[in-house]
């Protein structure tokens, strides 16, 4: 493989992995607090369409990202109200939310179909972008790519170094104990759900404003579900989530390059298209099969409603 092909594949891999990292880290935080929000796909779709609409009207992609974030947070708030205040089943509410978000976004997005946005220029980081081989691929990227890296460090620091993160993990492990020592379980879970929503919205905005700057119905294409799966199969550990996201992006890009190269294949192209999904899951399952790490990292109360006594 020559250097320029490698560089462009690496570039595309990072771009493809970025929305997954952002969304999955948001979901990771809300799951660490014990809330399983299966509505990621719907929240991303709402984020994508809101971001597209606002960018189209204002011409400012950053306003678009903000709009996407708030739209997805609004959807997350509905989820929070249903599951945390009304104690509805999280799985059912999340599934409903997914269908709702995808449908509503298609409805809102009808007038915007077949409109293209101007591409947002990348931000080139001086000097290190001149590094051979990887410089162009990693350091001449969209701002949201850099944001995803910052977000990774922020989430790691928050969960494992800050007191607020400690409280959040405690709430996810044993809400009853957390309540007994005086932490507001429901409020913390609301904040975690809203954070998850905000990240899903940014992830969606990345798709419709930066990645492929247009709106197509169904453009989230299962990325919300993959993000959910990444979190579980990465056993709720941020670094593995990041590895999984790039792995998914890498396999996705590789198979696209193969399909686009006009190479003669002995097997159906659909096999290649499905490759990123199952390859990612298999790799994550294999690296995360240690029972000890699963027990230590999985939030015990995940998906279980909690109601304070009295």
């Amino acid at each position, binding site marked *: 493989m020559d250097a320029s092909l490698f560089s462009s594949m690496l570039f595309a891999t990072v771009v493809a992995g970025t929305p997954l990292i952002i969304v999955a880290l948001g979901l990771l935080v809300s799951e660490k607090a014990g809330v399983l929000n299966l509505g990621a796909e719907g929240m991303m779709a709402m984020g994508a369409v809101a971001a597209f609409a606002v960018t189209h009207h204002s011409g400012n992609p950053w306003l678009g990202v903000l709009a996407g974030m708030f739209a997805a947070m609004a959807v997350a708030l509905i989820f929070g109200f249903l599951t945390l205040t009304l104690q509805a089943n999280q799985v059912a509410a999340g599934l409903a939310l997914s269908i709702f978000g995808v449908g509503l976004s298609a409805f809102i997005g009808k007038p915007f179909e077949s409109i293209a946005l101007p591409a947002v220029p990348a931000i080139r980081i001086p000097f290190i972008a001149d590094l051979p081989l990887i410089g162009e691929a990693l350091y001449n990227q969209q701002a949201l790519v850099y944001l995803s890296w910052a977000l990774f460090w922020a989430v790691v620091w928050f969960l494992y170094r800050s*007191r607020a993160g*400690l*409280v959040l*993990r*405690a709430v996810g*492990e*044993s809400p*009853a*104990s*957390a*309540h*007994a*020592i*005086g*932490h507001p379980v429901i409020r913390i879970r609301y904040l975690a759900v809203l954070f998850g929503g905000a990240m899903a919205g940014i992830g969606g905005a990345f798709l419709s404003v930066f990645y492929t700057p247009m709106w197509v119905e169904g453009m989230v294409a299962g990325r919300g579900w993959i993000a959910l799966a990444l979190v579980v199969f990465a056993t709720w550990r941020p670094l593995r989530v990041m590895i999984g996201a790039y792995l998914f992006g890498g396999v996705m890009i590789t198979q696209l390059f193969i399909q686009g190269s006009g190479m003669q294949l002995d097997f159906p192209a659909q096999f290649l298209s499905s490759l990123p999904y199952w390859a990612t899951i298999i790799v994550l399952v294999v690296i995360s099969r240690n*029972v*000890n790490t699963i*027990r*230590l*990292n999985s939030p*015990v109360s995940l998906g279980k409603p909690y109601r304070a*006594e*009295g």
Partner: protein
Amino acid sequence: MTQPIPPAASTPPRLVLKDIRKVYPSVVANDGVNLEVTPGEIHAVLGENGAGKSTLMKIIYGVTRPSSGEMHWEGKAVTVDSPAHARELGIGMVFQHFSLFETLTVVENVALALPGKPDLGELAQRIEEVSKRYGLPVDPRRHVHALSVGERQRVEIVRCLLQNPRLLIMDEPTSVLTPQAVRKLFETLRQLAAEGCSILYISHKLDEIQALCHTATVLRGGRVTGHCQPAEETPASMARLMIGKDLPVCEHGSSHSAGEIRLRLAGLSHATADPFATDLRDIHLDVHAGEIVGIAGVSGNGQQELLRAISGEEPLAEKFPVQILGVESGRMNPGQRRKLGMCFVPEERLGRGAVPGMSLADNAILTAAKSQHFVSGGFLAFWRARAFAENCIQAFSVKCGGASAAAKSLSGGNLQKFIMGREILQAPKLLVCAQPTWGVDVGAAAFIRQSLIDLRNRGCAVLVISEELDELFEICDRIAVIAKGRLSPPRPAAETTVEDIGVWMSGLWPGSELGEPHATPSAEVSHAPA
């Protein structure tokens, strides 16, 4: 042991409860409770399970709110609306079921309960200081899931003490401790009280209250039935206040000479994949027809794993380590083992011993269908199951709404009586039961113990795993101790003492540290009548 000295009566009370009432949808948990605690006083709250002790403590600690009534703290009327508020006031609580987070370290657990942002390194030092001062050794850097139950309790206590409480609530603190650890705990509590801290000590164990507490308030059915000074009472007089009648006594009857071997564990070893569980190591034990063998031990030392291996819930890789009525059954499932004549009463009544939402008749079908022939020609004969369930209800005087009542509608004691009845009426050749009287009121506990003894007298082999030493000494012919997944050789109950067993509970029995296999059980002296 020194008699507790009550503090001077002139000090104004630190905590006053007036006419506290708490109504849950189906039950009145507290009804007009009055309570006063002075500084430096160790005050017992005595009562059976379900008497409303825990509810009262949750009200003081702000976990739940009373339906009506007043609380005065250091002379001022207060409404405690959250545990955080209670801690601000200076109230600390050590829960019966610990409120620790298993996946976090000790210091992280402590940090969670403190206000502000403590520096973890500095906090670890403070933990070490406090634990040294009060004789509560804990290592702040370890993960909680790797700690024993006794260590976890120390973490809870240290966590409370770091907040300098003026009132410490201890909810049934000794149920998870060895007798020696109980004495250490009492020393710590006395030291605290001498420094002016008030202690509310909740228990149903009369001897402990006599040894430790200055005053006692007795609850029964949510009402205060008496105040007393435990030092001036006898256990019998306090028991009368607590249960309203004399303590029932079991008739042990004479033991028969040992019959055939019904259960043999021949070098049972089992490693689990679960990092929070205990591995079983080379366990040898024989249980004969016509005897009750007890297994003592602090919880979390392999009892659950041993039970699963015997019941067949976790089949073994090999056949020989578990022999039921002479059949090597290590790889059989629970149904096959029941067919051999073994019956089994698990520790958890709801969810394991019975399906909460199903009726008693349906629950009877679950374990007795084969032995009682409820199935004919592929169809269930419901009337037979119903008749069998009604028989259990009658024979074991279960208070319930009949055979069609849901299992979850029964109180703990009544459900346990039903489950015991269901197993015993199947006329087992071998009965294995875990914590037969856990959370059961005194009357029902005595009844259950008596039925175990009766079963033994009819020639059944009985294996009882329990954390209540008194119970084991009351009913067992021989007692063995499980510690860290190893089993001590059994000793005749009549030839051993609570003290000895207490030492063994920390794993120190003769020969245990040598790493050699135990003497084969057949070489033991036959047991004497108790």
